[in-house]
């Protein structure tokens, strides 16, 4: 059934006779026009990456960051309407801060995903607002260590705090993708935006659920995937932006930070090589066919 001309798609929160909210589906369309974002969950952390299409030569190179830090251990990247994404990031920061105020500890990644999902869902409920034109990928590393409560003085009791059980593994990396409807799922590899199909196909090849890949490897894979997902024919040049989060014993010491420039350059170099190889491979295949 087509949505156009029926009148059911003219306002948010209206069901069509077959139970769809078309305005939410149109918001998804806005996402599908945005630059590709991906997230990879590894055994020792999370990597986020985004393709930033350079619409004008006059943009300042390497400024205009698209991956945002929400709390020390949390990052968000999004595809779609960028001002909507920024609003969402502001909200995520408020949620993270409120969690600290209430619980005196950093917000677990899945709790933030839940809050963000609730917030976005609320924008599908009323005719007075429109849904968010973004899909957000949220990556975090909840500390696996015994951590002091915020503002703690002294060493406190020696038994574990924060409901932790001795001997049991707590925390770790987590990745979620939140859609304009407010739906969110946990992922090992998530992709959204223009090049999501190609990116998903590549992510599936990595066998991420086995939990064997490290973030250092994932940085290179992420760069390669963004390069593959980029459509040379349609789009102008692009910049690759990447961030990562490891545990306290990893390269980022539990913080969400930009991937260091030397590693980024190395990953981009490898990505370019991989793409060239792919193209050569294609040519050879064609040649083979010709010979046949």
């Amino acid at each position: 059934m087509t949505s156009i001309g029926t009148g059911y798609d003219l306002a948010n929160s209206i069901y069509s006779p077959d139970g769809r909210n078309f305005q939410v589906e149109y918001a998804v369309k806005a996402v599908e026009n945005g630059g590709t974002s991906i997230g990879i969950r590894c055994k020792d952390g999370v990597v986020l990456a985004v393709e930033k299409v350079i619409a004008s030569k006059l943009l300042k190179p390497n400024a205009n960051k698209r991956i945002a830090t929400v709390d020390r251990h949390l990052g968000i990247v999004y595809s779609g309407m960028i001002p909507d994404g920024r609003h969402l990031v502001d909200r995520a920061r408020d949620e993270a801060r409120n969690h600290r105020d209430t619980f005196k500890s950093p917000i677990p990644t899945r709790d933030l995903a839940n809050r963000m999902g609730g917030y976005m869902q609320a924008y599908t409920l009323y005719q007075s607002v429109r849904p968010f034109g973004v899909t957000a990928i949220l990556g975090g590393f909840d500390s696996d260590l015994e951590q002091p409560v915020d503002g703690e003085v002294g060493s406190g009791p020696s038994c574990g705090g924060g409901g932790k059980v001795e001997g049991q593994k707590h925390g770790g990396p987590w990745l979620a993708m939140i859609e304009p409807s407010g739906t969110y799922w946990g992922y090992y590899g998530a992709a959204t935006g223009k090049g999501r199909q190609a990116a998903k196909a590549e992510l599936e090849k990595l066998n991420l659920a086995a939990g064997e890949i490290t973030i250092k490897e994932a940085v290179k894979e992420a760069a390669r995937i963004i390069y593959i997902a980029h459509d040379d024919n349609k789009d102008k040049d692009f910049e690759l932006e990447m961030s990562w989060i490891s545990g306290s014993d990893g390269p980022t010491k539990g913080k969400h930070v930009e991937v260091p420039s030397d590693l980024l350059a190395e990953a981009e170099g490898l990505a370019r090589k991989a793409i060239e190889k792919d193209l050569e491979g294609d040519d050879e295949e064609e040649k083979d066919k010709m010979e046949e």
Partner: protein
Amino acid sequence: MNHLPQAWGRPRDDVYGAYDASYLQTSGPKQATQQPIVTGTSVIAMKFNEGVVIAADNLASYGALARFTDVKRLRVFLDSSVVGFSGDVSDMQYLDRHLNELAIDEAYDLETAATKDTSKPSGKLNAANLHKYLQKVLYKRRSDFDPLWNQILVAGFDAASKPFLASVDLRGTAFTSPSLATGFGAALAQPIMRNYAATEEDAARLTREEAVNVVKDCMKVLFYRDARSLDKYSIAVVTKDGVELKENEQLERQSWAFAERIKGYGTQTV
């Protein structure tokens, strides 16, 4: 005699007349914090040629009781400033959480790069900015008649990359000096520190080692004479390279010989 519970602990009516309960208001103005409860004593700090040294002991007293002996009252802000708290410990915790959130705010946009280029100015909140902010917070709270019961020293650097040291108290009063001390330290440590750094010029001639030694000596004097102090303390040195914080220092080479000569109070009978 009235033995009912409501008369317990009150002067007897038959001896002192009817009890004047008027001060026990059931309604009336809101009564906010009127005194500190669990407290930390002095914080002392002084500048030297390329930074600031700051120290405070690890005691939190409940009145005269030495209640908690492992309380760290020096807090590092953004790896570049140190805030030393004296006064109410719960208010210190509140401010510490507040500063933690402020530090996260600052990190949103400025500290994303793992490999920070330290040669370039970062524009992050320096000690002078932080001190100005704390002054506003404390003054706002005293104006609401709900003060945060602390006196605070802020050590670090200002916008011109010069060593910075300043104080702010529960009334929002703020000032700066080459050396500063809160609480008992203002009477006992400050004169000693001024022997070495009376002016900014003096402080600029002091080496790090000299300043650390002076501060350690002052901590010892404070332990000798301040009954709410402890011989375990924290000391931090702030330089351009960052903050070196040691939280479990022990006062060394104590000599209580002088105590023999003090007469006139306590259990002494001679």
